[in-house]
């Protein structure tokens, strides 16, 4: 019976496709994909216009702002490298929100995984530095950072599944706890007595730092992020595990009835997400800052949430969106210097984009052009 119905509906589809002379692929697959690109892009344009109005209120010419944003993000080889460097942590912290979202969880504690991962990585790396080859030091640091981040976010996943604790709130609370632990250690046992004005930990020797990609002033962390995205995409969209995880996100009750191990899936997904956040923190420590300090909590985790939403929680779409926000962050310095705007200008722009993007959710499914023809 069931197969009969399916067969007849497929036949009907074929007939319909043949009758309208439009190949199935064009409307039914490309339509939603185009919608997922066009609507966020439109929202982005609207956000930039609103932001222009906002800076105009502050007495700054919006056209100057736009041109400096282009100049500061892609205007020169230097700014392009700056954009790439700033995008690399965002790729990973965005995954920390995007992957659990596939399984129906709204995790906003990427900042916590970032801080805890970076902190654990440097704690594991310092005793090894000098004693082991740089490659081994980095491998251990990355592994420890990822495990720390994974445990951090998986804790929220476990609490959600077994105790019904809301994961959005718990991950944010965990972030504050993680930052407190960072400050506690940096001003306590980890503190390098040589750091007087700004308390920070002992530095990782230059030889053990993550190197730059040959020919560029951009570290390998960018590649780690892209590899992680591709891995996550394959895992979530081309494996049984990924299908199960997305089923939990789509309809938890159906997933449970189908006999899926929901608890284990939630744990694994949150652990992978946390590992991405932890790796981002490890890269920040081992490629950029070189030592633990309060500046580790610089907000990459929060921008990552926005990147994930703009990418519609798709791990591959995270890459271009992270590059976009890397560019916005990169141009922030130029806006500050040339136009005398406060450093929080970038935060305002990000906030406007976030709000407009969410408002644009309501437009999905409203435009005929993206829909399959209904006969």
């Amino acid at each position, binding site marked *: 019976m069931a197969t009969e119905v399916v067969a007849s509906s497929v036949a009907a589809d074929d007939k319909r496709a043949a009758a309208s002379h439009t190949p199935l692929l064009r409307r039914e697959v490309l339509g939603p994909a185009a919608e997922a690109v066009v609507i966020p892009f439109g929202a982005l344009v609207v956000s930039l216009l609103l932001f222009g109005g906002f800076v105009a209120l502050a007495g700054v010419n919006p056209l100057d702002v736009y041109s400096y944003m282009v100049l500061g993000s892609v205007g020169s080889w230097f700014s392009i490298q700056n954009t790439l460097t700033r995008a690399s942590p965002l790729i990973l912290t965005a995954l920390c929100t995007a992957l659990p979202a596939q399984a129906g969880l*709204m995790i*906003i504690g990427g900042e916590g995984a970032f801080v805890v991962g970076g902190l654990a990585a440097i704690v594991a790396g310092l005793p090894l530095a000098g004693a082991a080859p740089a490659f081994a030091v980095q491998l251990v640091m990355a592994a420890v950072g990822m495990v720390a981040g994974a445990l951090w976010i998986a804790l929220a996943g476990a*609490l959600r*599944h*077994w*105790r*019904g*604790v*809301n994961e*959005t*709130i*718990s991950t*944010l*609370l*965990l972030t*504050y*706890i993680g930052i*407190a*632990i960072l*400050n*506690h250690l940096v*001003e*306590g046992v980890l503190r390098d007595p040589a750091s007087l004005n700004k308390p920070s930990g002992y530095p990782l020797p230059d030889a053990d730092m993550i190197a730059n990609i040959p020919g560029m002033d951009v570290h390998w962390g960018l590649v780690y992020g892209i590899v992680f995205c591709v891995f996550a995409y394959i895992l979530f969209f081309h494996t049984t595990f990924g299908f199960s995880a997305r089923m939990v996100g789509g309809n938890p009750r159906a997933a449970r009835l189908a006999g899926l191990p929901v608890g284990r899936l939630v744990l694994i997904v949150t652990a992978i997400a946390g590992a991405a956040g932890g790796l981002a923190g490890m890269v920040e420590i081992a490629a950029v800052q070189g030592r633990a300090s309060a500046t580790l909590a610089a907000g990459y985790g*929060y921008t990552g*949430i*926005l990147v994930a*939403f703009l990418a519609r929680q798709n791990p591959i779409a995270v890459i271009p969106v992270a590059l976009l926000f890397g560019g916005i962050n990169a141009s922030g310095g130029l806006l500050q210097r040339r136009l005398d705007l*406060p450093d*929080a*200008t*970038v*935060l*305002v722009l*990000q*906030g*406007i984009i*976030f*709000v407009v*993007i*969410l*408002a644009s*959710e*309501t437009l*999905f*499914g409203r435009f005929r052009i993206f829909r399959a023809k209904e006969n």
Partner: protein
Amino acid sequence: MAGLGIGWWGVPLAVAAGAVRAGTPFLFVSLGELLTEKSGRINLGLEGTLVMGAMSGYGTAYLTGSPWLGVLVAGVTGSLFGALHAGLCSLPRVNDIAVGIALMLFGTGLAFYLGKPLIQPQAPSLPAIQLGWWSDVAPVRDALKINTLFIVGALLAPALLWALRSTRWGMIVRIAGDSADAARAMGYSVNWVRLAATVTGGFLAGIGGSFLSLYYPGSWNEGLSSGQGITAVALVIFARWSPMNCFYASLLFGGASALGPALQSVGVTSGYYLFNAAPYFLTLLIMVLTTSSEHRLSGAPSELSITR
């Protein structure tokens, strides 16, 4: 050096004083969030509202010289953010939790941007009532300095309880929160009821923010609020959507926040940052102990996405 005169006794005293002082913003934000949640929506953006309230209140008090005008402007700013939240959420397919996260980031960013010139100047503080005139001991007098806003908040909790339980408006809010269909069937616009509840909730959260900048700690800087807003949201769940429980829970959280500074004042400085994180530990612990994955929380509005 609050505890200098009376040694270790200064710690419980400072914690008790902190319960009242640091608890006041928790009280206002949680009552505001409670009202919003009773109408069936959760507003996670109150963290941003709190910071905007703190900034706008401080700015107004500095420019006009009147801290009370600052409190009012902070409330109005909070209402605007509430209106933005409710307006966005009334669009179909828009998720209230996501909008809350967006407004948290937007509010914080906007407050940092507009508040840049306010970091240096000193605005007038809100007045406090001295209830400790009978004591010679400075820490005791300090502890009994009660801010008027705390008294307002303490009166607001039973008032809100009464309003929700016994007035027509309270009933409409509760119906919208328990069954949108029932509210519609009775001829009420669910979106308008939630708009009103979120705007009022935002007003209260804005006032909570003004307390931070105008009384305690009493200045504006970018590190002013670190999670009080989101803690207050969690507090409402812990309080099982009861205004009086919100009041007690706010005192508890205020006391927890005061632990770090209190210990520091008697010379215990080693775990300062960890003690400062006490409210977050406490919130998480309480959420773990009091929620359940099997059955719904008692007292939860049925329409609330966070408990479904």
